[in-house]
């Protein structure tokens, strides 16, 4: 984490998961590559040109 002078509690990376009860099969907890690809797939859902191009 880029914290500089941050003096608060430590935080974890999002790809480490946590309580996965709402994550479903989106990605494998602890696997950054599967998190990256889950996010990339979600991002293309914002791009309608993948359907209509």
């Amino acid at each position: 984490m880029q914290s500089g002078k941050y003096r608060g509690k430590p935080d974890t990376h999002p790809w480490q998961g946590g309580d996965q009860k709402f994550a479903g099969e989106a990605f494998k907890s602890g696997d950054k590559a599967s998190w990256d690809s889950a996010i990339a797939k979600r991002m293309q859902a914002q791009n309608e040109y993948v359907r209509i191009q």
Partner: protein
Amino acid sequence: MARMKFLCDAERCIECNGCVTACKQEHEVPWGVNRRRVVTINDGVPGERSISVACMHCSDAPCMAVCPVDCFYRTDEGVVLHDKDLCIGCGYCLYACPFGAPQFPQAGAFGMRGKMDKCTFCAGGPEKDGSEAEFKKYGRNRLAEGKLPACAEMCSTKALLGGDGDVVADIYRNRVLKRGKGAEVWGWGTAYGPGGKPQGAPAAAATKG
């Protein structure tokens, strides 16, 4: 490493406030706190433009620079978050922020400001991901579930894009190239003709003398 950013396409934003509603609902944001707002310029005037504004998760965040208790941090994904347990509610981050992102819930009487609250890019905060404590303080952590911010995913026209800055830029660039500019934005030139005149409009009839 993904650097998370928002981009609101002013050409597509229809001021539906779906993003505002999605954020409010997703994080159970208290009354009076507006993590996300839609700002409309020249409201009611033809050519009005709207933009959805929340924390921009600045790479060089002024809120982080001015905080007297150093409660802000930036994650490896570029999301600017803060620790509410350290926050003293001084309001300096609000003064520093050019977007008015920090919000204060007026938690007590006599103008007490309460802890600062702001858009977290749906990345929660420095508590265990997905825990009750994280939800109560910071709202839902959608990033830890492999999802994007609720506002961007709920946007009805896909005006609000959120996610990896490089991918957002690619999507937006492709969109701008496809839709053209001027009269060809959304096919207005096709529908109404260049310069606003309908195509094929009959020429003014000559008067017969």
